[in-house]
C-alpha cells in the first residue's frame, strides 16, 4: 500500500485530497499519477476539474481513429456527462502491464490491470448495449468502423457471420465474454494491451 504523499503541483487541492483518500495508491504509482494529472490538466482546457466528451474530441488523432468515439465513451460511466480525474486514472490503469508476480489470491478483488480485466474492458467496447454479449449487429458496427469504406456490406456480413460462428460455442449467435476470452487465449494480451507510459 503506497500512500500518495508526494508533493504535487499546487492546483486544485480538493480533488487532490479526494484521490489521496481513496484507493488509487494500489492502482497506479505516484509517478504515474503526476504524469496523468498533467495530461488531465492539459485536456481540461476550461479547468473545471472534469472532462467532457468535447475535451476528448479535441485530440486530433483520436478523431482519426476508427473506434475513437467508443474509446471516449468508455471513459464515461453510463448516465454521466463528465469524468473526473479518479475515473480517468482508473480507466487508464487497465493498461498497465500486469504484475506477474502477484500471488493469485482469490479473496482479493481482481486487480484492474490483470488479463481478465483488460479483456473485460475490451469486451465492453464491443458490447455497447451492455447485455454481456457481442451480438451480430454490434460486431457489424465494429467491423464497419474498422474497415470504413473499403468493403461492401455483404462482405462485412459474411465476415461477421464467420466470426460469430467460429467463436460461438453455445450457439446463441452472439459472443459472450467467456467465448471472447477463449478466442483470444493465444494472444499475449498483456503485451498487446499495455502501454509503456504506465509501466
Amino acid at each position, binding site marked *: 500500500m503506497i500512500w500518495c504523499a508526494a508533493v504535487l503541483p499546487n492546483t486544485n487541492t480538493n480533488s487532490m485530497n479526494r484521490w489521496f483518500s481513496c484507493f488509487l495508491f494500489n492502482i497506479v504509482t505516484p509517478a504515474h499519477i503526476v504524469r496523468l494529472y498533467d*495530461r488531465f490538466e*492539459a485536456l481540461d482546457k476550461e479547468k473545471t476539474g472534469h472532462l467532457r466528451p468535447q475535451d*476528448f474530441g479535441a485530440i486530433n488523432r483520436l478523431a482519426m481513429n476508427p473506434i475513437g468515439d467508443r474509446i471516449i465513451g468508455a471513459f464515461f460511466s453510463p448516465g454521466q456527462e463528465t469524468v473526473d480525474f479518479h475515473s480517468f486514472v482508473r480507466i487508464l490503469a487497465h493498461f498497465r502491464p500486469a504484475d506477474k508476480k502477484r500471488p493469485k489470491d482469490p479473496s482479493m478483488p481482481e486487480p484492474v490491470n490483470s488479463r481478465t480485466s483488460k479483456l473485460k474492458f475490451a469486451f465492453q467496447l464491443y458490447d455497447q448495449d451492455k447485455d454481456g454479449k457481442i451480438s451480430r449487429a454490434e460486431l457489424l458496427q465494429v467491423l464497419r468502423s474498422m474497415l470504413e469504406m473499403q468493403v*461492401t456490406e455483404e462482405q462485412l456480413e*459474411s465476415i461477421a*457471420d*464467420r466470426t460469430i460462428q467460429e467463436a460461438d460455442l453455445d450457439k446463441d449467435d452472439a459472443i459472450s465474454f467467456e467465448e471472447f476470452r477463449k478466442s483470444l487465449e493465444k494472444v499475449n494480451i498483456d503485451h498487446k*494491451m499495455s*502501454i509503456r507510459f504506465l509501466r
Partner: protein
Amino acid sequence: MSVRVALHSPTGSRSFLERGLLLLVMLIFLEGTVLTLGAASSPDISAQDNTGGGHDRRDDHRGIAGSHEHTNYTYTKKAFPVLSLDYHHIQVPFEISLWVLLASLMKLGFHLIPRLSSIVPESCLLIVVGLLVGGLIKLAGEEVPPVLDSNLFFLCLLPPIILDAGYFLPIRPFMENIGTILMFAVVGTLWNAFFVGGLLYAVCQIEGTYLSQVELLPCLLFGSIISAVDPVAVLAVFEEIHINELLHILVFGESLLNDAVTVVLYHLFEEYSGAGEVTPTDVILGVICFLIVSLGGIAVGAIYGILAAFTSRFTSHTRVIEPLFVFVYSYMAYLSAEMFHLSGIMALIACGAVMRPYVEANISHKSHTTVKYFLKMWSSVSETLIFIFLGVATVAGPHAWNWTFVSVTVILCLVSRVIGVVGLTFIINKFRIVKLTTKDQFIVAYGGLRGAIAFSLGYLLDKDLFPMRTMFLTAIITEIFFTVFVQGMTIKPLVDLLAVKKKQEAKRSINEEIHTQFLDHLLTGIEDICGHYGHHHWKDKLNRFNKKYIKKCLIAGERYKEPQLIAFYHKMEFKQAIELVESGGGVKLPSAMPSQVSMQNIQPKKLPPAVAERALPQFTKGREEEIRKILRSNLQKTRQRLRSYNRHTLVADPFEDGWNDFLLKKQRMIELEKKMTEMSNYLTVPAAPPDSPTMCRARLASDPNAFYNIKASSDGVPTIQVDLASPQSPDSVNMLNEFSKRGATDQGLGQREGATRDEDQGLMMKLSSAGKEEKEEGGNKNPGLMRCLSDPGPSNEDEEDEPFLP
C-alpha cells in the same frame, strides 16, 4: 534452411530393403564422387581461380585439335576418335554440380534413416559427412581442395541463406523487439569480443603456455571473429526445435544484426595489427565507421528494395521474369554493400524486407511461388554445402593444436556469452513490457552458436601478418564444432526439459485477427489520450504514410486499397472450403461455406446502377443452389475432363483485347451457362468476378478439389461454379508436410501452407468478363484476376500433368 522432403509413404511402410538399397546406392555414389574430386583436386580447383586454368586447357585442346586437323592434311591420317574423354573441358562445372548433388543426396539420406534426424540436428550430420568426404579424399592420397574459400563463401554460399531469411522475416515481432535485438547484437557482441580477446591475451601472457608471442591486437581480432553469433548455424538448429516466436526472433535477429559490428571490429583490428596499437582517434573512427557500415548497409538495401518494388509494378506483361528481379536486385544490393565494405547482410535483409510487401502485391501468383521455392531451395543447398565444406576444411586445413589456447577459447566463449546475456537482460528488462524470464535468458545464451562465418573470416587473415593464423583457425573450428555439436544436440532436450514455450502451430482465427486489429486501434487511441508517443502511435503513423503515399507508387493498379483483414478473411474462407470438400463434406454446406458475397471485389458500394444493368440472364437463388449441388456431386468425374478443357480455355488477359472480345466472351459465357443447366456433368467455366490478389492466390493455392461460388456484386450476373483444374499430384501432399515441418517463420507462408500445392497446372480457366465489367469504374483494369490470368506460365505444355485420380 533444411527443407525436408517428407516421404511419400509413411516411414513404416517403406520396406527395409528399399531403404537399404538406396543407402547403398548413395554410398557408392559418394565413393565415386570422392575419387573424382580427389583425382581432379590436384590442380587448384577453387571455383574462381580455375576459370583461367580451364580456359588455357580449352585453348590447348582446340590448338591440339587444330594441329591435329592440320596434320590430317599433310601427314598420315589417324583413326577418327569415335569416343574421347575430355574431363578438363567440363571440370569446374562438373565438380560444382557434384558437390551440390552430394549435398542434396546426403540430405535425402538422413531422412531415410529413422529417428536419426530427431536426435541429431542436420547440421551435425552434414559436418560429419564433410569430415568423411575430406577423410576419404585424404586417404585416396589426393590433396583436399580448399573448398571453403572465403570468396566462394561470402559471394555465393551466404547470400541465398540471408536473402531467404530477410525476405521471410516476420516483420512484426522483429520490430516489436528491435530494441532488445539491437542491444544483444551490438553491445553483446562488443562485450564478447573484448572479454574473450582480452582474457585470452592475459592467458597467453602466463608463463606456462608457449603463447607469449601472441600480442594484444591479434587476440582482440580473434575475439571479434569468434564472438559473432552465426545466422546459418542458428537457423539450422533453431528451426528444428520449434521454439516460440519471441526467442527465435531474438537469437536470429541478433545473429543477423551483429554482422555490422563484426565487420567493423574485424577491419579495425586487422588494419592496426600491423601498427601494433590503437589510438583513441581510431576508436572514435571505429564508432563512426560502425554507424556508417550499419546504416549504410540498410540504406543500400532499402534503395534496391524500392527499386525492385517499383520495377515489379510494370511486370504485368512479362510475368516469367518477375522472380528474376527479386533475386537480381537483392544480390546486387549485397554486392554493392560489400563493395563499400558496408554490411552486406544488413543490406540483404533490408532489401528483402522492404521489397516484400510491394512485390507480393504486384507479382502474379506463380511468380510468388517461384520466388518462394527458389529461395528455399537455394538457401537449403547453400546451408548443406556450407556444413559439408566445414567438415572438409577441417580435414584439409593446416592445424596447430594448442591445448591451452583452444580450451580457454571454448570456455571463455561460453562464459562471456552467459555473462553478456544475463547482464544485458537485466538492463533490457527495465524497458520491456514483457520481461525476459530466466528460461528465456538461458535459451538465448545457449543458442549463441558459431558457424562458418567465423571460419571464413579467420581464413581471410593474411598468413604473413598473422603467424598464428593456423592456431586461430584450429581454435575457431573447435569452437564451431563445440557449439554445433554439443549445444546444437542438447538444446532440443533442454527445451523440452525446461518446458520452454513452443511455437504455436495453429493458424490464426478470424476472431484473433479482428480483435487484434481492434486492440491496435484501441491502444493507439489510449496512447493519444495519454499524449504518449509510443510504439502504437508510430506504427499507426507509418501505416498511414505507407497507405497514402508509398503504396500508390509501388503497387500497380487498384490493389493497394485492399485491407489486410479482407485478405486474411478470404484466405481463411478458401481454406475452409478446401477442407470441407476434402473431407467429403455433404451436399448441404453449412453456413461457413464461402458465401457468394465474399468473393466480390472490394470496390466501394457506389456503383452506378446503370452499370449493373448490363446483365446476363438472371439466375434465381434456388437455381444456383441446384447447380451447385449438381456440380459438387460430380466433382470427381469432371476432373478428368478438366485437362482438355484447361488447355483451350486458358486465355490471356481478356482486357487487352478490348471491348469486342469482351462482348464475344460474354456471348460464350451465356451459351455455356445455358448448357450448364442442361447437362449435369458439364464442367463450368468460372465467372470469376474481379477479386483481390490474395484471394486469387489463395484460390490458386488451394486444393483442386475446392470449388466455390462466385457471384457478381450485382444480381444481374449469374453465379457460376468454378472447379480448379489443377490435378493434384501426390507430391503436393508432401509439400504440405514439408512446409509445416519446416516451421516457416513467415506467417504468410504459414498461412498458405495449409493449402500449398504445386501450381504449375493450368488453373485459371477463362473467366467471364461479364461479371468483371460491372464492377469496373471508368475502365479501370481489374487487377486481381488479370494478374492471375495473364500469367499462363512459361509454356502451355507445362499445364499438362497426370490427372489426379483419388
